[in-house]
């Protein structure tokens, strides 16, 4: 229980360092990867909101979070890639965004209920 109480400092620090690194280094992304990155970011966002909610529910598990994050990103990118190969990339992207968007909204609502009891 103690570990979880001190927990958020490290993830938030990690996030801050990541953002700083992204701003400072500004790496050039290979052109072939560019269509998949926005989807990957939305998938990562879904994992983050899921993680926050699980933490507020008291059942957060770092292993589950890491696995869900990685698989979310990879599967989202894979679906878009497959869609591009089949010529339905735009539609599949929309499908992925809709599903992830619904989950993000649901988790955000749960987080809101936890924080504001409303």
């Amino acid at each position: 229980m103690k570990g979880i109480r001190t927990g958020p400092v490290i993830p938030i620090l990690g996030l801050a360092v990541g953002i700083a690194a992204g701003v400072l280094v500004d790496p050039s992304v290979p052109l072939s990867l560019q269509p998949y990155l926005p989807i990957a970011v939305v998938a990562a966002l879904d994992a983050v909101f899921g993680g926050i909610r699980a933490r507020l529910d008291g059942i957060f598990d770092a292993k589950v979070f890491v696995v869900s994050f990685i698989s979310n990103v990879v599967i989202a990118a894979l679906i878009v890639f497959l869609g591009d190969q089949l010529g339905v990339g735009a539609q599949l992207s929309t499908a992925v965004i809709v599903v992830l968007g619904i989950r993000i909204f649901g988790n955000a609502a749960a987080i809101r209920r936890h924080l504001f009891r409303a």
Partner: protein
Amino acid sequence: MSSTESRSTSMLRRLLDETLDPGYEEAAGRRVAAGGTAAPESGWTRRLVLALCLLLIGALSTVVISQVRSSAPQREELREALIADVAAQRSAGDLLQQRLVEIRDEATRVREQLLAATSQGQGALDELDRAEKGAGLTAVRGPGLVVTLTDAPPPENGGDNLGRILDRDIQSVVNEFWAAGAEAVAIDGQRLGPTTSIRSAGQAILVDFRPVTNPYLIEAIGPAGMFDQLLESSAVRTLASYASSFGLGLDVVPADQLDLLPGTRAAVTEAEPVGLRRVSGRGDHR
């Protein structure tokens, strides 16, 4: 939980209700079953991996945001660069054209010097002079007319502009000029030769494959009667009726003195020059 019943009812319902990754609950359930608490212990490795993951997420997000932000101005930059390239190439072409004119002048001067020495040569020179004037290859000066054709302002409802100047409008005016005895004609400063084309390419009008732009200035040097004959011509009358009904601009003004530049020499691909003997021979017959 409502999720157990909705699992059987519909996929959409599940999607809407089960927003949390089921993995968390399952993991918690396993821990409780093993006799522990719902919350896991968090070792340092787990925290480190978690921090790394979030680092990755932060970096990924910022990279994508900066990528999307920078790609829009990049496209604009590319467009500007292309426009600058076109302008640069065009001015380079103009420079080369100018250099060509200079070299040609030099060649003409040397030729005249050499030919003027003999009477045979003088005859050839006169012949050449007439041919070049006919082909529009010499700069000329004289009194003439200036016809200005202007596109009608675009209609406010965004429809087709019926008052736009077309290639055939310019063609008809030029033809009337030739018919009225014009000796030299130029469009937007570009001299017309015997093989010059006036054509549309999309929205642009090309004279000898070089674009001319609105307003179109057609200058012609010719006899004094040209003005009256042009005003009487069917082409100008038609254009005048277009001007009153569609709003295009038509302006015919006599000019005391016009300076027209020499035209470009058409590249000779099929014809072969006859020997100097034949040319001078013809000169001898006169």
